[in-house]
């Protein structure tokens, strides 16, 4: 299953709903393009909802890191929402769980940006 992505605005926060796989190739590129497009519109509060992401490889992890640093470098913030167990475990073993601000409640996550 390839990656599907859509975004919506909630109280000034861009929530990016991702589903499928974030892997080398299409999935990583789709995520990169979406984040770049949001930043180009001045939307710098980004919440990546990974609740439907069932697979991520090292390239996908790299893309998450790239998105995080790109947004931070532009004065914004990027947080993660609703990690599946597989993605959670991957972020744990790569020590990135401590780098990302990970949320499990959408409303609380949106409030945390303000």
């Amino acid at each position, binding site marked *: 299953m390839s990656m599907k992505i859509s975004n919506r605005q909630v109280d000034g926060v861009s929530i990016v709903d991702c589903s499928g796989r974030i892997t*080398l190739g299409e999935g990583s590129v789709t995520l990169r393009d979406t984040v770049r497009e949001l930043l180009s519109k001045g939307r710098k509060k980004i919440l990546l909802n990974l609740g439907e992401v069932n697979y991520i490889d090292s390239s996908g992890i790299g893309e998450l890191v790239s998105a995080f640093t790109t947004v931070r470098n532009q004065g914004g913030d990027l947080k993660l929402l609703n990690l599946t167990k597989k993605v959670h475990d991957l972020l744990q073993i790569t020590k990135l769980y401590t780098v990302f601000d990970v949320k499990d409640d959408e409303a609380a996550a949106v409030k945390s940006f303000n």
Partner: protein
Amino acid sequence: MRFPARGNEDEWIGFGVGKFIHKIFAMTKQRVSYTLDSTLETVDNAEQTATRIAAEAGFEEDEVMRISMAVREAAINAVFHGNAYDPGKKVRLDFESTARDLVITISDQGKGIDVSKIPDPLAPENLLKTSGRGIFLIRSFMDEVQIHPSHSGTEIKLIKHVHGPAVNGKEASQ
């Protein structure tokens, strides 16, 4: 015999040079080999094949996932870093199953990886790097990992023990 007896051996041949693979598998029922192009499709196919073979070898779902992710990462390294998508270079993928182990070997025709230059992705200065986690993930997911670089390419051997990791050490050698 780890690979189960199958009525139709062609089911094992998802891609690659079919007749050659068929012959090897028909002879031994324990080993299957593929010679593949240096493409993204190869990465996906290697992962899918690893998933199927690991499941049919009797590993539980979580272990199948780890094995298939390790194979995907090794295939990425072979296609992307090793062969650099060169259409003239091939990736070889071998699966061999014994009563003790599932052994997967991935070989490329690149310049050979310099193992000493693989950075530690957990080091604080590397945490925010966007690449360099593939080998680390492979080592995390498999019981033994052997990396054999040469001037004509890199061979990486991934071993998963049927009965879990050995007591003495996780990694055999590099």
